[in-house]
């Protein structure tokens, strides 16, 4: 399936990213009702000495689905996101290594991986991104 035929996804205008990491904060706040960037499904990559910041975020490429051997990941056809079955995930890290976007993260509290679920169709990172780096639209 060509990228353009996919369900709506988040686009990234990297050059606008200010490194505020509000996306990480609201991501965890939405999912867990607490603050802890290590639990986020998005991460800001920082090169402070160059003044460069870039969001690492799932683009629903599905690579992870093919490497998981615990049957913990599945494709949600309706929303177009990867779902993690926390009972099956054993935090082995294969999907983390395989992700071309480097956008899968191991959660230090729950002990399973977190993958962007587009907040069930209303991505909070987009809503809270002040420099408007992120936009949610059909690719």
């Amino acid at each position, binding site marked *: 399936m060509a990228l353009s035929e996919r369900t709506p996804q988040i686009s990234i205008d990297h*050059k*606008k*990213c*200010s*490194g*505020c*990491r*509000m996306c990480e*904060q*609201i991501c*965890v*706040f939405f999912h*867990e*009702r*607490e*603050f*802890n*960037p*290590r*639990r986020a499904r998005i991460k800001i990559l*920082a090169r*402070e*000495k*160059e*003044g*460069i*910041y870039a969001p690492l975020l799932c683009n629903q490429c599905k690579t992870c689905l093919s490497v998981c051997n615990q049957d913990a990941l599945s494709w949600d056809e309706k929303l177009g996101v990867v779902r993690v079955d926390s009972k099956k995930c054993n935090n082995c890290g294969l999907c983390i290594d395989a992700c071309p976007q480097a956008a899968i993260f191991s959660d*230090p*509290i729950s002990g399973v991986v977190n993958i962007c679920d587009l907040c069930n169709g209303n991505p909070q990172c987009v809503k*809270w991104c*002040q*420099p408007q780096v992120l936009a949610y639209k059909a690719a």
Partner: protein
Amino acid sequence: MTKWYGWMGIVLRVDLSTGKITKEPLSEDLAYNFIGGRGINSKILYDETGPTTDPLGPDNRLIIGTGPASGTLGLGNGRFTVTAKSPLTGILGDASGGGAFGSEVKFAGYDHIVNQGRAKKPVYLWVNDGEVIIKDAQHLWGKNTWETAELIREELGDGDIKTLCIGQAGENLVKYASPITNDERAPAETGMGAVMGSKNLKAIAVRGSQSVKVAKPERYEEIVRKWYEDIPKQHLTPLHKSVGVTYLIKLFNQVYNLGIRNSQELHRPEEEISHFFGENFVPKYLVRHISCFSCPHTSQKFVQIHDGPYAGEKGMRPEYGPLASMCTQLGVFDFPFGLKIVNMLNQYGIDAQELGPTMAMVFECYQRGILTRKDTDGLKLEWGDKKTILELVRKVVYREGFGAILAEGCLNAAKKIGKGAEKYAYHIKGKSHPDRLTAYIPAVLGFALASRGWDHLRGTVFPHVTPSSGPPKFWDYDAKYAKMVTDREHIDTAADSLEICKWLTEFELMEEGLGGVPRMAEVLSALTGVDFSEDRLHKACDRIYNIERAYLVKHGIRRKDDVPPRHFLEMPIPDGPSKGQTIDREKFEALKDAFYEMRGSDKKTGAPKRETLEQLGLKYVADDLEKTGVYKEGK
């Protein structure tokens, strides 16, 4: 055991002499009465140090404080306060930092880190969640702050580690050395870097994976959302977004308040200073608009110079304060040089706002013949001489020859120089500042009463200054200014103790009445689940003010020390609409009467009265003051 929301509930204590590390539970008394950040730091400092504490001795404390809002959402939540008895002023020392260090301390599971004692050899503290290790730092001694941060991250194998470290200035105990985090965020005031140096503490490195819990998540999100709706209403927002704080250079020049050549001039034709205007340097050098942790503003500008003698220099554009201190006050009007020198100060770890006025003082002494080349190791201290400025900074940092005198701070250096140099050393309680601002009496009152010496972040009322408004006229001494200053002190104290950025509270929204104590009380209640009414937060701010003031009184500070710098009183404004004006001492003293009365302080001594302290639950502080004899002086 208290179930904590907002707060993490743990104070980490590190004794660098013995290597003992303890995790103390945060008490409800501390949290509910002193909130966090600056508030709890000041209470710990008051309780654990005093007049016999040598600021550079092992008994001093170096306290890192986060607040209930640190590590949360959307209000500049990376902030933290560093507190110690100041080696510069000998009284309360503290400084607030931005970046992302404060939030990481929370994520590691701590509200405060209290360092005491002195390590035998250079060390750094590695705080990795519950694991706290004092590590050898001999290989880092002599490195600048940028190198140190990089080496620690490499050594510990984690690029996301946040550090607070000192450079060569802190190692050499320059009295106004500053720790640095994020390469350029400086809790700079009052020499906290020298205290770290005296403890052989090169750095604190932190990484955490704990969660900050929120008592009422929906309510908190709603408050922040509403806050954001109000930000565009604020008149400075467009300037702040597009240019950043450097716009003050232009505005202060327009209203004849830009300090030039040790404040001998307050204005230049715009074409001479236009290098510093955002509309010029942003299009030319901007790499990217940058924010601190979890802040809606992109007020910082990462720039890179690609022409002239400083080509290749890159970093965050300096703010107004460092530029005024290190450029205009020294007669330099060159933005690329400003970036160069401020990068250098951040690498050495030294406070621009004390160094600049100290250098400006000796340049003026040289201009007036008080100093000659015989005194300055052969340096010709001529205004605007960039090469000499760079060389003198190096000599200060390494305490080399004439530089060692300047390393003591503006007032102390002037005393050492003698021959009338003190006349050109502008300070309050031993702390300098680049501002002139004589035209605003409420601002000057805030300066004079601030608890850490001359300071614009602790009760200074700035008027609306816009290009179209023209110079505001505050030449009257209306008693209502006492209330304005007290109100502003409470806003600043609340922001410093919750650890919310002042750009979202004091500066940005105050004129519209939107960023004040009521709103911060809502934030505090939603985060912590403790019912903080507006009055309760006001009372906490009052308590924090009074314990800080009592600390000063114990160190001999009295009403006579609450005075504007000498040039405000003695040197008429040289130019512009307020030409010829000075502060009227008598009227200013009458205004102070109104202030002390409002604060429940004794008018004769400026000390908090016993009943004021007792009402705030600080009877033991009143008993301490009793022992100093200050209450007898008041009679």
